[in-house]
């Protein structure tokens, strides 16, 4: 580890300059009663080449999504990230910088984040975006608390928000943790058999602080009925929409059909699934929420010579100024990953985004067609339109079916029983831009052979 310590071997010289004689002198303020004596019970230091060898060996024991046909998506994308993204974002000037508190020497990151904000606004159809949340779930959760802060005073249903019952449980759990402190009550809105939101029941949300729905929802369903939601709940109730960012290459952005806030997972732009993190949450809103929103924001300004310049702005919302009255506790966020996202988005361009969305849509449709012809395998929501994900019902335990597929080298999707007890015979199948005909055939053959096994 001495390769990390430029002053290793020069301790004495430095101590002497201070009139000290040992490293221990530096820690003499720590009372004896709480001093650790003896070395940490940890292994020997390793050199770079030993760590690299261990990392290759240990991480090599994982099974990469790229090694096999994979239909596991469930909110994270098995995307392709162009090589420039990583190479540019890891330039030391970006990688090793921190929050741009000194705008004079941070214009690069500030401008990149201002461009990021612009691209997110364009993507979702809203005028304001921050520079990232931790992930889609905290973005949803903080959107809800933000809506309550803004709307509660005038709300008829005070401290109440409505959430689609198809929001997956891990996200619900995050939302619960984030809303519990503010005493927010969560009510659910149900869906019909096609997986579409029950609009009549959504009407009861009018007068509450917010409604949170997802488009496409967790079962991949694109629900056109959502376009009417805003008119049902009214202006005083925030419509918060969780999105699949890629889907907006073909789907009308929620900002155009009444969403007050849009949140979602930014990961498909910029970074691989990376075991679920670091990823980044998208957060966009209308002007009404600007001063109550969480997270950092970059604004354009000028320097004293009149040159265009960028700076963090509206910091008075933030914890380092407003402390316990801050709109959020977020401090370290996911800027670097958002930068990767910005680079990826600029490489795609409008038509590249559209092509990407069409590829996912095509793969979804092709997989659906191929799977649904298998005897005794049914679509859970046969009438619905799907993007990226769809659920199937299998003749037996989903977990068994997935195990069978796994032993055939196919990652078949998610056992929906993990999310909802009642769905333990359902699999959430996810297709994506990289899904090939061969992948689909492997899934179909694997499922077919399993259904034969269980039925025969």
């Amino acid at each position, binding site marked *: 580890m001495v390769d990390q310590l430029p002053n290793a071997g020069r301790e004495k010289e430095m101590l002497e300059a201070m009139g000290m004689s040992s490293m221990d002198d530096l820690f003499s303020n720590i009372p004896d009663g709480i001093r650790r004596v003896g070395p940490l019970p940890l292994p020997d230091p390793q050199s770079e080449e030993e760590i690299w060898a261990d990392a290759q060996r240990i991480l090599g024991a994982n099974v990469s999504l790229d090694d096999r046909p994979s239909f596991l998506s469930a909110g994270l994308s098995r995307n392709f990230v162009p090589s420039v993204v990583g190479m540019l974002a890891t330039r030391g000037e970006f990688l090793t910088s921190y929050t741009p508190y000194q705008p004079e020497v941070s214009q690069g990151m500030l401008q990149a984040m201002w461009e990021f904000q612009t691209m997110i606004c364009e993507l979702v159809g809203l005028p304001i975006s921050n520079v990232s949340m931790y992930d889609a779930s905290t973005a949803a959760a903080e959107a809800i608390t933000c809506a309550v802060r803004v709307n509660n005073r005038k709300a008829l249903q005070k401290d109440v928000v409505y959430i689609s019952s198809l929001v997956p449980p891990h996200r619900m759990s995050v939302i619960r943790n984030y809303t519990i402190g503010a005493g927010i009550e969560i009510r659910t809105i149900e869906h019909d058999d096609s997986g579409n939101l029950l609009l009549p029941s959504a009407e009861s949300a009018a007068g509450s602080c917010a409604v949170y729905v997802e488009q496409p929802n967790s079962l991949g369903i*694109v629900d056109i009925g959502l376009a009417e939601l805003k008119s049902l709940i009214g202006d005083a109730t925030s419509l918060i929409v969780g999105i699949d960012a890629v889907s907006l*290459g073909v789907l*009308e952005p929620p900002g155009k059909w009444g969403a007050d806030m849009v949140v979602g997972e930014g990961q498909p732009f910029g970074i691989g699934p990376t075991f679920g993190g670091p990823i980044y949450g998208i957060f966009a809103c209308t002007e009404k929420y600007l001063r109550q929103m969480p997270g950092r924001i970059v604004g354009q300004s000028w320097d004293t010579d009149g040159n265009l310049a960028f700076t963090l702005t509206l910091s008075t919302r933030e914890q380092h100024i407003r402390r316990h009255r801050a709109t959020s506790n977020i401090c370290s966020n996911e800027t670097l990953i958002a930068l990767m996202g910005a680079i990826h988005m600029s490489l795609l361009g409008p038509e590249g985004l559209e092509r990407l969305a069409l590829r996912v849509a095509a793969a979804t449709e092709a997989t659906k067609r191929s799977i649904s012809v298998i005897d005794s395998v049914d679509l859970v929501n046969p009438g619905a339109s799907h993007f990226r994900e769809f659920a199937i019902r299998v003749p037996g335990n989903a977990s068994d079916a997935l195990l069978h597929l796994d032993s055939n080298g196919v990652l078949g999707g998610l056992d929906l029983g993990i999310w909802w007890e009642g769905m333990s015979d359902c699999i959430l199948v996810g297709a994506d831009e990289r899904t090939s005909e061969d992948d689909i055939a492997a899934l179909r053959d694997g499922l077919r052979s399993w259904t034969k096994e269980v039925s025969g």
Partner: protein
Amino acid sequence: MSDIFSFRGAPGTGWSQPSPILEESEVRKSIPNGASRKALPGWPRASEPEIVRHYTWLSNRNFGIDTGFYPLGSCTMKHNPRLNEKIVQLPGIDRIHPLQPESHLQGLLSIFFEMQEMLAECSGMDSVTLQPVAGAQGEFTAIRCIQEYHRSNGEGHRDKVIVPDSAHGTNPASASMCGYEIVEIPSAEGGRLDLGALSAAVGDDTAAMMITNPSTLGLFEVEITEAARIVHEAGGQMYYDGANFNAIIGKTDPGRMGFDAVHYNLHKTFSQPHGGGGPGSGPIGVREHLSRFLPTPVAARKSKGAEDPEGVGDGFWYFWEDVGESSIGKVQQWHGNAGAVVRAWAFYRRYGRELEMMSEHAVLNSNYLRHIIMNPDKETAEGIHCMPAEGADTDLVMHEFTLSMAPLKELNGVTGKDVAKRLLDYGYMSPTVYFPQIVPECLMIEPTETESKEVLDQFASDLHSVLSEDPETVTSAPHTTPVKRVDEVWAARNLVLRHPGDSFPGR
């Protein structure tokens, strides 16, 4: 000025992608009528060469540790070993989905397990979760656990969290997000924890106290065990903000000090690059009595059975262990910032049992820098308008220290912020300014262990130069940066928060 929205290649310039696997017309049919996007987003249309040049140009207008000394106090801006960046590009982390079966994840699970154990050991805690993705989220998570703990004990009425006035803003913000009322206690003379004030503040309504040690003034709070006793006696829990962990590893730990819960900032102590503001990683550790409230799941292991498939070859089978019914559930939707955990693992492996040496060098550098700043040679001293005051009256500091520019301001109007801006001209990132707020005109300086003596010597000498300069030069600084002082007020008044689309905005 490079303006990415001025790149106007032909439609489709940058997209280079294979075709969809179905005919486009067929695909379009799968999208419900009326839900189709009408106009594509106004993204730039740029080729790869243009993108590369744009972001290269931007990066050259940005300052990182790789550019120069980054003494940003409280942020532990240490060198980020490049090996770690290479490791996280391996498919065994980059191309892994958190919902894959455990048999696909033995490598990652074993790293998670190793990190849980190591962090528990170094902090004197019993259980660790790696789920929180930043320090602030770690605080929030731990306070949520403490909240559930009190509720489970029928003590749900405890509704106050105590923080010293020198605490980082995330402490009160996190507790407040859990619904707690914040009781801020003033520091004693010299910036230290005031036990009297603490005793006065605790009571039957105390849920917890949040404190960092060493404090944000770089002082080791010698009466910390006494503080813990006071809070515990009142029925409260002690929360340790581990942002300053870099100062004490192997020397002491929050367990010994009497804490019940702690967060770590892996991006500080264990060098996950800060990347312009994040990502971070904020694992928390707790004592036994809080373990069952931790977010779920955590990594666990058992001896490998004959029926288990290949693992990592250490004789164990790794798996996710559900924390159980009392768990607060999830704070991030997957397993936290795994990439940061893996980087931190690689970092930790380099030191192993000698992590202690890292803390030693951090504290050595900090004391050395403070010493040479405050003790210029006679000739230099004579040229200085006025020496800064020490932020705290102490002989020793830990990994960071504070200086007050108040004397200078009084003398000639040069503020702490001016000095900070002027340091930019000398090729440094500025120290943290105006935090902690209890030190007037504060500069908070944390050199970290990865700066050489030469850099520290040069910085001290350059700071002395700034203190000797014509005040006008300092107050109008910076002069040599990519842009001059930026008008933050204009930004806040006009709120131009996105590119207007055509060309850059004019005034």
